[in-house]
């Protein structure tokens, strides 16, 4: 079920109704049922995958926690009998048992993810290698026909985050299997995140929620705003994006810049819109989800951008990959060695660069099993490392020229936006050589006149569409600007009822009339829109 289908709206509407009718202690059970129904509708064959992950992580977490509890109990009981060394030995023994459990859990689930998501990628690369060494066509491996289960990257990460948290002792394991199943499968966030932490989500997920008019309508408002972003802006822009990336040969030079800008806006509107819908749905159910964005395009550096874009993914990678790698024993030793042999300045940085390389490689491949995503991830890494290395230089520069004024800040924001969008083209063209070639044409094509000679109207978007997009993007920017001073919905809420009504109903009508949905927007039907 796509968020933008009638079926999904119907599904959610029925759920809302039931949610506040059934006895409150049933609410989370209802959500579990709804989530599994949602999942089954995407394909019953996928249910096995999510069930395996749920069962294994649930069980592993319990084993780990039981072991930890036993350890505490044992130490307490024998507090006075054991020497310090004995205690330590016992602790280490128990710890290695726990380590084995968690490794089993992690490997199994990451293994499933790797197999369904990356097998064909690996085969393609292997075939490429075989080919390069002249083994010819006869040895080519055929691709596996594995369906990618809905949201597998998201729920796997969410479940593993929980497992690691239990291992670290930062959260208590969930004893009720069905409650845990809900945590893994909670349907609004299944498709595109956010990746929740158990410690956060469990606080509201299982609670009993009375109907609260304000929370409920705030949730609806957020959903509406999400649909505005998605249907009015993103899906309209998509027509242009598709035209541009569908035929790279025809759209070179200045078109690449146009494509860059379109794709950046389209992706922002689509992704944040989707998250708005997700968080909005959760809010109408009285459940609080982590925010996933914090006006990312206002960032002044790439580093800041990554703290504000897809936040839950970024922090996941930070907490569960970057930190463990950075502070593990090997890295500590490596750190020391580096500092000794390479000097303080370089030696201090090298280990961090190494571990962030791993993180960005993982981030890239997480987005998709193909080289363009890996190059995109590593591109981000390279830019981040360069700016990190040059930071002292920047600082001196800033001090010398007193850069810190509004104009300079604006420059930084624009620079970051361009940088992010440029890196994004790797995932837009979906092919590394094509992306490089297209960037090359920026300097050779010299077709700047397309920006004003009407060629833009040849992308399948009319002047009216451009008008709507311009107003829409302007609205996004102004709402973002307003958000810096607190919740916009709260502000509107403080206004008199007729004004609020006009505002929200107006937004609803905008989505209804200007949304790119339905048969009239089906690409194959475009040709026959002759009414």
């Amino acid at each position, binding site marked *: 079920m796509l968020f933008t289908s009638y079926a999904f709206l119907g599904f959610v509407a029925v759920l809302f109704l039931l949610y506040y009718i059934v006895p409150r202690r049933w609410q989370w059970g209802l959500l579990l049922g709804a989530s599994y129904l949602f999942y089954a509708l995407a394909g019953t064959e996928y249910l096995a995958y999510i069930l395996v992950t749920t069962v294994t992580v649930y069980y592993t977490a319990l084993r780990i926690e039981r072991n930890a509890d036993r350890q505490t109990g044992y130490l307490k009981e024998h507090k006075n009998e054991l020497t310090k060394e004995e205690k330590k030995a016992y602790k280490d023994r128990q710890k290695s048992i726990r380590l084995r459990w968690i490794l089993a859990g992690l490997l199994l689930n990451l293994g499933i993810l790797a197999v369904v998501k990356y097998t064909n990628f690996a085969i393609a690369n292997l075939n490429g290698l075989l080919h390069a060494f002249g083994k010819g066509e006869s040895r080519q491996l055929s691709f596996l026909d594995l369906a990618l289960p809905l949201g597998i990257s998201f729920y796997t990460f969410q479940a593993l985050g929980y497992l690691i948290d239990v291992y670290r002792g930062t959260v208590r394991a969930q004893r009720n299997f069905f409650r845990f199943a809900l945590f893994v499968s909670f349907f609004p966030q299944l498709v595109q995140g956010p990746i929740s932490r158990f410690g956060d989500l469990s606080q509201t997920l299982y609670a009993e929620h009375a109907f609260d008019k304000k929370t409920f309508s705030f949730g609806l408002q957020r959903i509406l705003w999400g649909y505005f972003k998605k249907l009015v802006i993103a899906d309209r822009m998509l027509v242009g994006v598709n035209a541009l990336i569908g035929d790279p040969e025809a759209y070179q030079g200045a078109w690449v810049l146009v494509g860059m800008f379109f794709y950046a806006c389209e992706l922002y509107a689509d992704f944040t819109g989707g998250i708005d819908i997700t968080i909005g749905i959760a809010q109408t159910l009285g459940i609080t989800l982590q925010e996933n964005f914090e006006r990312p395009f206002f960032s002044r550096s790439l580093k800041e951008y990554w*703290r504000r874009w897809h936040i839950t993914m970024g922090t996941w990678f930070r*907490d569960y990959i*970057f*930190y463990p790698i950075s*502070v*593990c024993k090997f890295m500590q030793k490596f750190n020391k060695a580096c500092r000794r042999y390479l000097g303080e300045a370089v030696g201090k940085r090298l280990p961090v660069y190494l571990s962030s390389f791993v993180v960005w490689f993982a981030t890239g491949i997480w987005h998709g099993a193909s080289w363009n995503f890996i190059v995109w991830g590593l591109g981000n890494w390279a830019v981040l490392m360069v700016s990190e290395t040059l930071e002292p230089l920047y600082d001196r520069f800033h001090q010398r020229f007193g850069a810190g004024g509004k104009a300079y800040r604006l420059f930084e924001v624009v620079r970051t936006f361009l940088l992010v969008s440029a890196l994004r083209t790797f995932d837009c063209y979906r092919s590394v050589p094509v992306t490089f070639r297209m960037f090359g044409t920026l300097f050779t094509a010299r077709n700047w006149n397309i920006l004003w000679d009407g060629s833009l109207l040849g992308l399948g978007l009319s002047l009216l569409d451009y008008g709507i997009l311009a107003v829409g993007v302007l609205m996004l920017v102004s709402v973002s600007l307003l958000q810096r001073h607190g919740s916009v919905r709260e502000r509107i809420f403080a206004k008199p009822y007729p004004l609020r009504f006009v505002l929200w109903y107006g937004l609803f009508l905008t989505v209804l009339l200007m949304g790119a949905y339905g048969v009239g927007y089906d690409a194959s039907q475009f040709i026959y829109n002759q009414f």
Partner: protein
Amino acid sequence: MEILQDLHPDVDFETEEHLVDDKILDSFDIVSLIAEINDNFDIAITAKDILPENFNSAQALYELIRRLEEEA
């Protein structure tokens, strides 16, 4: 304290209590900080100890170090 001061000469670590929450310390800082502390105090701060409440102030950090020294 010196280590902290080294990282960000412009911040007053004596009084600041939201080092992480206010994004004064980023992940890179935290990692270099840990490397230094582990080295100097001969303890092992591990990934599970990297919680905002442990790094929000110099005081919290000091308590973390003391706790880990005791455990070791």
